[in-house]
């Protein structure tokens, strides 16, 4: 069940009809039941896996901190269980062919598809969430959950189950213990988040994805350089609006239940540095990587040598962090290449700052900020090539193809029209500091905007472009 489907809207409305008539504890039971029913519409296998990991993590966390004392062995056991589950299901494409060949060599017949396993949708998201829970319990930042229902809701909560935002237990669990109040303002913001999210997904992202020709990623050398550059631009905005659209709908739906979810995007293509980009793009994952990979690595190295220009201090934390990000996103060398590229970008940015400190970006002259936005955007754009390409060779061909300007064929201008509302939405956020700034406009303007948005969502949904959310695949 997609979260932009009418069935999902029906599920949300039906749940809400009962939700506010119930006491808080029963509300959590209802959320858990609906979340499991929602997940079961994808697959019973996914649900079984979620149950197993919920019980395992609930039990393990009790052992990570016992009688107030942290136990390192239990922490590593908890992390190992989660990483192993993810590795087996997510990275089977890496190791199953080798394993199958080895078994065949020693005479064990695996048969076609005999070792195939299926990655539950959303698993990458709830696994990193629960790893942060185990680590925070170990550090004493949160007590081990003593309520299995609340803990199960933390992992399974249906608005965020498929693709985040990645919530921390120490901010999410207290929300489940508190009464939920949705006043007029909250209702208005929730509705706006859902409408903007639907516009981003159905009107912008699906239209842009549909404009990409087949064969673009498999055989990029069939296309001229202006086409490759133009389609890459379209892909960048399609990917962004796809994920930001999902997040908007998820946050809006959750707000209807009186549970606020974390912000995940903040106009990332207006970032003035690569570091700023990662504070604006998939924020909850970026901050997870910062807190559980970058900070421990960086602090360990700084303790050995506090100099910022010490080579390991400069290189290892960003590179390792971005390689882990690549691994989290998927299997194959292309994702590792994408992660390595971003890691090297960050290393270069830090090295340049050491050599020539520029000061805070917003204190720079306007022309320099604009130039920085352009440079960062182009670098991010180039990195999307391996992110999407099926293999490293295809990514290389795409990059090389963009250098060959002997043929000046270009995509139709019509393909770029959907970029305009995408840019406008982000521009409002950058200028006003609030993605929902238009809620401060006069009522007639808001009503006209809402009518226009709903009409656009209706018309574009009739076109049935409906590509699945990209990040659900991770």
């Amino acid at each position, binding site marked *: 069940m997609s979260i932009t489907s009418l069935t999902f809207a029906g599920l949300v409305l039906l749940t809400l009809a009962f939700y506010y008539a119930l006491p808080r504890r029963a509300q959590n039971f209802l959320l858990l039941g609906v979340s499991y029913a929602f997940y079961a519409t994808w697959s019973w296998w996914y649900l079984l896996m979620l149950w197993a990991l919920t019980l395992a993590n609930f039990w393990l966390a009790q052992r990570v901190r016992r009688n107030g004392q942290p136990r390192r062995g239990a922490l590593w056991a908890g992390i190992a269980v989660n990483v192993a589950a993810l590795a087996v299901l997510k990275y089977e494409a890496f190791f199953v062919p080798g394993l199958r060949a080895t078994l065949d060599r020693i005479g064990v017949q695996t048969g076609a598809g005999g070792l195939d396993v299926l990655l539950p949708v959303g698993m990458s998201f709830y696994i990193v969430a629960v790893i942060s829970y185990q680590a925070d319990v170990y550090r004493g930042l949160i007590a081990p959950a003593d309520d299995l229902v609340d803990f199960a809701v933390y992992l399974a909560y249906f608005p965020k189950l498929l693709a985040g935002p990645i919530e921390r237990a120490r901010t999410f669990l207290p929300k489940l213990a508190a009464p939920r109040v949705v006043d007029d303002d909250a209702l208005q913001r929730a509705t706006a988040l859902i409408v903007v999210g639907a516009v981003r997904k159905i009107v912008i992202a699906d239209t842009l994805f549909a404009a990409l020709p087949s064969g673009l990623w498999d055989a990029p050398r069939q296309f001229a350089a202006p086409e490759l550059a133009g389609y890459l631009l379209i892909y960048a905005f399609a990917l962004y609006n796809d994920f930001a659209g999902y997040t908007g709908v998820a946050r809006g739906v959750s707000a209807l239940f009186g549970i606020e979810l974390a912000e995940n995007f903040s106009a990332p293509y207006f970032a003035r540095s690569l570091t700023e980009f990662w504070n604006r793009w998939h924020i909850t994952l970026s901050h997870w990587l910062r807190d559980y990979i970058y900070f421990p690595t960086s602090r360990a190295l700084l303790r050995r040598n506090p100099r910022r220009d010490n080579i390991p201090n400069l290189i290892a934390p960003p590179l390792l962090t971005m390689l882990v990000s690549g691994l989290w996103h998927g299997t194959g060398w292309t994702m590792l290449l994408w992660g390595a590229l971003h890691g090297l970008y960050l290393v270069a940015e830090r090295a340049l700052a050491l050599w020539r*400190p520029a000061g805070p970006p917003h204190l720079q002259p306007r022309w320099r900020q604009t130039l920085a936005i352009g440079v960062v955007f182009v670098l991010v754009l180039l990195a999307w090539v391996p992110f999407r390409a099926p293999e490293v060779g295809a990514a290389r061909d795409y990059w090389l193809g963009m250098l060959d300007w002997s043929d000046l064929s270009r995509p139709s201008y019509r393909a770029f029209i959907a970029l305009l509302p995408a840019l406008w939405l982000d521009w409002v956020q950058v200028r006003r500091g609030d993605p929902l700034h238009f809620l401060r406009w006069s009522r007639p303007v808001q009503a006209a905007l809402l009518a226009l948005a709903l009409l656009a969502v209706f018309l574009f949904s009739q076109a049935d472009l409906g590509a699945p959310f990209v990040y659900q695949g991770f």
Partner: protein
Amino acid sequence: MERSQVRDTLRTFVLNDMIRLPTYDLRDDEPLITGGLVDSFSLALFGVFVEERFGVYIPDPDLTVENLDTLDQMVARVLRDLA
């Protein structure tokens, strides 16, 4: 240790090592991260500095914008653990 001593030490560190503009006129309540003066990744430097200078360990997930966005918050966090 006096609050003023902690504040002066942290101010010098923030200006020299985080913002890297020693002459910047930083207010005590000025947002460092949400105000764009430093990025949240540089809080690793802050974490190691207060560990070595004051013997205060701040866990990694506590090195957040919510906890440490201003000099006032940084001083309060260090004093909390020194008390």
